């Protein structure tokens, strides 16, 4: 094991480069042409994931490096902070494409084309290749079994989709002759399978019993956080808050939206509001955004003019919601904008007040 710890691995069309994170002067590289093949080593307890890079024997005119020679014909790259999946993919691509053969390198590096180097196959390498082939076959077998099972499962899932379509058609034909109970049942079946509701696209969206329950839960969970944040939160904030609190059995974004759509009809103390921009927020019923606009106008007047960023900082709101409030104030005629490349700035609307 060598002492090259804590660095950044870079991949170019020609080389694999490692640069020490602490000492930027320290930088080592391996030409991609030296690579025979690479294999992945999964992470384990106390071990990070690795990529093993098997190399050709060094050519006699190799560039000076940390070691003149080694008894090993491979190097191991240890990914202590992940990224190995993408890196393996990219490195495989570069090795397959062999772009270093067609693209000339830049300055500095002296590339002596040793046409012999690529053709020499040491005995040890053949053994490694055989081992890798066996391992590939074994993995392939596991994968193909998994794929087979997956295909069979999908066949069954497809049947469910067909059935749901046929029921949906029936419902469409018998407009209104389907009981509400049956509609609710049908929706919950669709929810379980993850099939989009082909029939109803109205008020409750894909609302089901589950979403009704969820809506009630949310009303409980969000009361205090909303009070702490001035009565209003964006849906992305809510999504993060709720899921971080849950830890397991998280809500999907759609679950959240569908539940929130039911808040008002369930007469809960929160409601969903959608601004013109498409931004979605949850407000306390007691919250009155239009009243907040009056306060915002005062703040802006005090300062002469404000951007959304400045207003957000001043008032202690997220920039997203600050902007929506200022836009609403503008819509109501209290503020007007100065939209330049310096930024979007809001001023009290003097046309209104000083006429």
């Amino acid at each position, binding site marked *: 094991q060598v002492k090259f710890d804590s660095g950044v691995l870079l991949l170019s069309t020609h080389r694999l480069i490692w640069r020490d994170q602490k000492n930027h002067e320290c930088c080592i590289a391996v030409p991609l042409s030296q690579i025979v093949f690479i294999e992945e080593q999964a992470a384990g307890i106390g071990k990070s994931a690795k990529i093993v890079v098997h190399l050709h024997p060094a050519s006699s005119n190799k560039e000076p490096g940390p070691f003149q020679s080694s008894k090993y014909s491979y190097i191991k790259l240890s990914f202590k902070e992940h990224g190995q999946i993408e890196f393996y993919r990219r490195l495989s691509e570069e090795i397959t494409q062999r772009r270093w053969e067609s693209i000339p390198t830049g300055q500095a590096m002296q590339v002596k084309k040793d046409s012999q180097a690529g053709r020499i196959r040491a005995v040890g390498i053949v053994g490694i290749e055989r081992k890798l082939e066996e391992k590939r076959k074994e993995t392939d077998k596991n994968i193909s079994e998994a794929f087979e*099972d997956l295909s069979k*499962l999908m066949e069954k899932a497809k049947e469910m989709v067909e*059935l749901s379509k046929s029921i949906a058609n029936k419902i469409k034909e018998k407009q209104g002759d389907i009981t509400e109970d049956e509609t609710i049942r049908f929706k919950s079946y669709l*929810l379980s399978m993850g099939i989009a509701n082909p029939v109803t696209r109205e008020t409750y969206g894909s609302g089901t019993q589950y979403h009704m329950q969820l809506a009630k839960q949310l009303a409980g969970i969000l009361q205090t956080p909303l009070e702490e944040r001035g009565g209003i939160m*964006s849906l992305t904030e809510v999504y*993060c808050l709720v899921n971080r609190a849950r830890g397991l059995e*998280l809500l999907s974004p*759609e679950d959240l939206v569908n539940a929130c759509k039911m808040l008002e009809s369930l007469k809960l103390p929160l409601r969903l509001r959608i601004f013109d921009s498409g931004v*979605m927020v949850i407000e306390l019923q007691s919250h009155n955004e239009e009243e907040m606009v009056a306060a915002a106008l005062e703040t802006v007047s005090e300062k002469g003019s404000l951007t959304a960023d400045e207003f957000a900082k001043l008032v202690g709101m997220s920039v997203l919601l600050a902007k929506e409030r200022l836009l609403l104030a503008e819509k109501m005629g209290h503020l007007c904008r100065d939209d330049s490349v310096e930024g979007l700035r809001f001023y009290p609307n003097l046309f209104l007040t000083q006429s």
Partner: protein
Amino acid sequence: LPQAKYKERGTVLAEDQLAQMSKQLDMFRTNLEEFASKHKQEIRKNPEFRVQFQDMCATIGVDPLASGKGFWAEMLGVGDFYYELGVQIIEVCLALKHRNGGLITLEELHQQVLKGRGKFAQDVSQDDLLRAIKKLKVLGSGFGIIPVGGTFLVQSVPAELNMDHTVVLQLAEKKGFVTVSEIQASLKWETERARQVLEHLLKAGMAWLDSQAPAEPQYWLPALFSELCSQELSPEHAREATP
């Protein structure tokens, strides 16, 4: 009277089918349980398998990530994986928004998310990120994906970006910046159209203006800064290379 009879039959038919669906659903649940017991780990560990799984679901019209209450999420655990990723993506984008105007490359997002997840968390691929982001769209805060070069830009603010904006972003992706002349040369637009698009990006904070550039003003995308740094070309060489 025959009308009423007809109505009744109609309802009964649907009832029959619903009962059938309920039974088949139970059977499917069992099948899925069996599949999960054998291959749940595979899905967790193998990003390629995840992609296959997602693609097959999409083909037959099933969205395994639609609800945390769905069978797929419950039994395969795919839900929690992607929904948690969603939270991490939101947090990274929020943290960097002041710097890049709400536009970030998929690569940088990937790096930052991995950092945030820590050493002991499971690795995620770029495909995983894209799927999580697609789900976040529905929350209304402007999450979107813009294809550029060979990769993607991830938008996380509700700024309106139409085809014109997207095309200019794609043009800028090559060097990290773009000029009005380049737009005119590549896209054959009039000056005014180019200027409007660039102004929109400036106002959104997604582009920065370098009015002191030698030939003409350059519009840089901060979202691409980290990508420029990772290229072999050093900034000095880059400057030399530009006319």
